[in-house]
């Protein structure tokens, strides 16, 4: 018999096994974030030219661990927690095969430990991309494979939960939009992990001597189906989190369910093809392949992101205007709960992802202008805007929401929690913007020493590049401070936060089940179908229902157009035509 408890504050239902797995995955994810953030400080203090902290070999080891911990372990562990939340809690369903879900979690943790042990062992400093013919310790690849298998199990447990919910009729109509978004994330994850298996299993066999050779060009094509698609899982999932937070904080409904779902459908069709933009300068691959996958397919995925970027704040604006905040174009935004880290974190995530990550991503995905920033520090600038400001800040905002709801603890240090999104968002925006600026001046992406000291063919960057890298270093320290604050507040809340129900003990904060007395074997009432048609009928009849959002969208569009053509101007200066 499945046991459920209902959160007295939100009315959400939690299946006992699903709840424990959500906690365990989220906590393990935050541990990985802590490791990644600590390593980030060392990376920042080394790439800051005036500090230049670590020696070269240690720097590459630390950078490898930072990349894998942040881009793979932290985000995917947290995503599995989101999948279980979207499948079980939002559909009021029991989790399918909780034992398999536990096995998947154990595999992910064991895989993460193996990989990190291999990296810190010192003989696997191959960076996250682990391009062949650089050879890491076999346990490095094996750890990644185990982690991927665990994540794949998590995805199929989620898909199984959708089947259980449908068969047991726990909801009416279509699944909620947030669950639909999580489904898209799970679908992208399946392709991503399958691609990882395609390339990491042969590479593991190569590392132990069973295969003599792996073609580096082939490796790059297949690896990027893993490397970039893993970040597309984030995009689908953090957009779902935006919709969730807009709904919870404002009671906002999507402006059009149909349009939002169609945008998600564009992700399913086209988002993963954008992996091709990593191979823009690779020889041996035709322009047809590059241009179709980026300039056609990728732009349709970008269109989908622009739709979400319009409909999420639009839904908030409509909800705020219904509450009477109708003065001018932006009263709804001025009077939003900026002191609530759930909202402020989510909104900074949305704006940073669109303005910094989105615009720079299109530039990187255009074959001609990509060449001027390819393999420069511009690239980390871009993906810190997408994955850190976009995804990590969305995860942080969701965590602030879930501490009382899922963990049943009151958040400690509420005044610091109010500031945390601003500190982290400011610092990370500085990292993104100034790295992109330095990359435009050509600063190399991965080189330990931007001055190339002691090299026979050294290169002297303009002094401005050193200044920009210094400012990015300051931004990095601010961001790490914000990240540390997040870990202190969240972990501190799980340990020292006031219990919101007596069963929520210390061990229960970390995945041990609450006492059975907290649960009931009564089946939750069927989730009623959302009145989408009624809401949509409200929208669209009065013309500009969300004028503030429309203005913001136009600002984004104009910024994009200007920046896009500035890059063509830069390109024209690279190759002067007589």
């Amino acid at each position: 018999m499945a046991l459920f408890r209902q959160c007295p504050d939100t009315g959400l239902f939690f299946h006992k096994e699903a709840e424990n797995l959500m906690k365990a995955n989220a906590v393990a994810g935050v541990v990985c974030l802590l490791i990644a953030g600590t390593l980030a400080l060392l990376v920042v203090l080394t790439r800051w030219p005036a500090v230049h902290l670590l020696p070269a070999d240690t720097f590459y080891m630390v950078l490898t661990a930072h990349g894998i911990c942040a881009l793979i372990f932290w985000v995917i562990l947290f995503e599995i927690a989101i999948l279980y939340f979207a499948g079980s809690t939002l559909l009021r369903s029991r989790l399918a095969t909780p034992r398999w879900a536990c096995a998947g979690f154990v595999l992910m943790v064991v895989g993460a430990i193996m990989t990190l042990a291999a990296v810190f062992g010192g003989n696997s400093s191959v960076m996250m991309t682990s391009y062949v013919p650089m050879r890491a310790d076999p346990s490095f690849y094996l750890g990644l494979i185990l982690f991927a298998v665990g994540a794949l199990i998590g995805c199929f447990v989620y898909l199984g939960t959708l089947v259980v919910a449908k068969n047991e009729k726990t909801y009416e109509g279509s699944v909620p939009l947030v669950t639909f978004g999580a489904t898209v994330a799970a679908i992208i994850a399946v392709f991503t992990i399958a691609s990882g298996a395609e390339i990491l299993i042969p590479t593991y066999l190569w590392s132990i001597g069973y295969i003599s050779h792996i073609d580096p060009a082939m490796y790059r094509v297949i690896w990027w189906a893993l490397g970039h698609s893993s970040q597309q899982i984030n995009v689908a999932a953090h957009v779902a989190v935006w919709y969730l937070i807009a709904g919870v904080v404002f009671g906002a409904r999507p402006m059009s369910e149909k349009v939002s779902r169609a945008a998600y459908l564009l992700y399913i069709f086209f988002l993963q093809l954008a992996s091709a933009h990593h191979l823009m300068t690779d020889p041996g691959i035709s322009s047809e392949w590059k241009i179709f996958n980026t300039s056609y397919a990728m732009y349709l995925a970008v269109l989908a992101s622009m739709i979400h970027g319009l409909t999420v704040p639009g839904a908030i604006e409509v909800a705020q205007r219904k509450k009477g905040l109708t003065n001018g174009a932006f009263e709804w935004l001025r009077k939003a709960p900026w002191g609530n880290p759930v909202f402020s974190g989510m909104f900074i995530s949305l704006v940073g992802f669109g303005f910094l990550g989105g615009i720079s991503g299109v530039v990187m995905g255009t074959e001609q202008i990509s060449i001027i920033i390819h393999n420069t520090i511009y690239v980390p600038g871009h993906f810190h805007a997408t994955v850190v400001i976009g995804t990590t800040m969305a995860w942080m905002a969701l965590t602030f929401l879930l501490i009382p709801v899922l963990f049943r603890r009151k958040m400690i240090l509420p005044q610091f929690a109010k500031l945390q999104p601003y500190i982290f968002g400011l610092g990370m925006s500085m990292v993104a913007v100034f790295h992109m600026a330095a990359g435009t001046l050509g600063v190399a992406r991965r080189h330990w020493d931007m001055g190339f000291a002691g090299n026979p063919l050294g290169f002297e960057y303009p002094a401005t590049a050193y200044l920009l890298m210094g400012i990015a270093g300051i931004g990095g320290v601010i961001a790490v401070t914000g990240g540390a604050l997040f870990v202190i507040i969240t972990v501190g809340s799980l340990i020292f936060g006031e219990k919101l129900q007596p069963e929520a003990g210390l061990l229960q904060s970390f995945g041990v089940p609450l006492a059975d007395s907290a649960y009931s074997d009564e089946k939750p009432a069927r989730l009623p179908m959302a009145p989408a048609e009624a809401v949509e009928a409200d929208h669209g009849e009065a013309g500009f229902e969300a004028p503030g959002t429309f203005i913001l969208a136009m600002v984004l569009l104009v910024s994009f157009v200007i920046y896009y053509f500035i890059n063509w101007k830069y390109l024209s200066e690279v190759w002067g035509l007589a």
Partner: protein
Amino acid sequence: MADDNNTDERDDEKISPWQQIIDNPFLLLFIGVAMPTVFYTLWGVMEVATIPIAPY
């Protein structure tokens, strides 16, 4: 019980084919795996595999 079945049947009748596609996660899974497998992976691998090998 019979009423429930009738209600479900009526609901099914109202659902458009387009909505039924959107509501089928396994069909979406097939599309989401097939599209990038064909246009990104297979096409990309074919391009690399057909590069002539340089003579020693």
